[in-house]
């Protein structure tokens, strides 16, 4: 299952004119492939990630997630597709403050109508995989930055997504913790065979991906060898 972005254009009003953030961008991430999306600030990386995550409708272009053309779907169907097929790891963990680590993962199954007798065990298994077996009952306030990001990664994996998106997931962590989290992310993405799009400024992280795509001023820059 892959992620296909074709001819994506996003423009926003800018005073009396219009600012084009993404201009006819094409991007294809194959099943099990990890693509690092790099580029300077303002190049449109996060916007492209939002389009890929069905969080933003492009003004033009087609988004296919796991073979489903999301451009033709209504809001409700896009939400359902996002919940069941796309996992997102944000720059900061974005955990819900009232939920324990285990509940942060379980809630994904709940909001997507997939809560069953195995949910608790699956959430626990994922948290064990990211090394948090001793922190299952801890709330975000009691977790370190690295632990929070691991919880966020487990949450993104809960629905076994076809597409995994990560928006600078280690930006708020120190280099050691960042490297640990990134290694985990890439390992889990490969295990799942997910099409993974990783936004990063870090050259080392980009090098760990199968391929790097550079954005510059809303365009895909020529391929880097």
């Amino acid at each position, binding site marked *: 299952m892959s992620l296909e972005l074709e001819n994506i254009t996003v423009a926003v009003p800018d005073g009396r004119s219009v600012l084009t953030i993404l201009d006819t961008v094409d991007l294809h991430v194959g099943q099990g492939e990890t693509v690092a999306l790099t580029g300077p600030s303002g190049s449109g990386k*996060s916007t492209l*990630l939002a389009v890929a995550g069905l969080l933003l409708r492009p003004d033009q272009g087609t988004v296919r997630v796991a073979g489903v053309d999301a451009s033709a779907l209504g809001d409700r169907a896009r939400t359902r597709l996002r*919940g069941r097929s796309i996992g*997102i790891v*944000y720059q*900061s*963990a974005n955990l819900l403050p*009232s939920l324990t680590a285990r509940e942060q993962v379980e809630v*994904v199954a709940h909001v997507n109508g997939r809560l069953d007798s195995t949910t608790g065990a699956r959430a626990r298994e994922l948290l064990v995989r990211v090394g948090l077996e001793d922190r299952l009952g801890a709330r*975000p306030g009691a977790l370190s930055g690295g632990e929070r990001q691991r919880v966020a990664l487990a949450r993104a994996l809960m629905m076994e997504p076809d597409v995994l998106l990560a928006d600078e997931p280690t930006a708020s962590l120190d280099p050691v913790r960042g490297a640990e989290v990134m290694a985990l992310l890439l390992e889990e993405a490969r295990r799942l065979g997910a099409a993974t799009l990783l936004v990063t400024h870090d050259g080392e992280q980009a090098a760990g991906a199968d391929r790097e795509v550079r954005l510059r001023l809303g365009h895909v820059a020529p391929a880097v060898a």
Partner: protein
Amino acid sequence: MYVALRDLRAARGRFALVGLVIALVALMTTLLSGLAAGLVDDGISGLRRLPLTHLALEPDSGGTFSRSTLTATNLEPWQHVEGVEASPIGVSFVNAKGPDGQTVSLALFGVAENSFLAPRPDARQALAGGPGLVLSHELAAQGLHVGDELTVAGSETRLPVLGFTYTGSYGHVDIAFTQLATWQQVFYGGEAHGRFSAVALRTTGGSDQVTSALARANRAAGTETLTKTEAYAGSPGYVGETQTMNLIRGFLLVISALVVGSFFTVWTVQRTRQIALLKALGASTSYVLRDALGQMAVVLVVATSVGAGLAGLGGLAIQGSDVPFRLQLVPVLGAVALLVVLGLGGCLVAVRRITRVDPAGALRLVD
């Protein structure tokens, strides 16, 4: 309510505070309901317990007995209406002196001894004898006994206490029954000329038949007919008291709705990013709405139930004292339900915000 219940658990201090405010409003609303019911009871229970369905009074008297004077000419047409039982009644307020010199205020109901208006068989029997009074049971608690003589101020008529009947009052004054002739003697002296206050009516049969029969008899008798409920408005102070109580209750309900609405609006604003995240995780707008409304409903129902329950306990403690207080289950439940509904109504602004939260906001989150 997966997230909502966990929010309630995690932010229990915050929810306890708003719950306390709602509980206090519910407590006051319930107490006011009890006071309103007590005041109404104090104002019209004597009339409410009379076994009549309608009253025919002098036109434009507005249900006020003191403004209505009828005679046998007005009564006569009513006595031939099929399906309607009619009996004259005289109502006036008097002061009387008891055997120990104590002053007793009475709402004096003059009724024909053998009419359907005479209360209970024992009282009817008592009224069938010589002139005297059958008093509200409340007056027995004030130290009056059967055989005591009361001297009615103004007429100086001396009337023995013949017995006691159900507790009732009219215009916040305890009721006393006497024979119609005695009432006329007390009120008009020797110049009664058969006058009384109103014709009490007890109807049977279908409503259409009764309505047309009442209209015909009204025209013939030159009277104005009110239902028993409409006649409550004639009790002194009744309209003002009920309107004041309803106004205060209305204010409380509005204040409660505003407090609840404000709290949940602020709460929703604070949760905007969480809501965006839930939507980004795949939650539909209806899921988030159900979650939020469920949370609001839990807070409202628990807090109002606690408040109403405490008011009920307080009410039980003061019931029977001099404070006119009467707890009735249906009005209390109605007030509690109204508090919950209006509280949820107050949350509409919050609900509107929830529907508008953009899941893309999740990308801009910072813990």
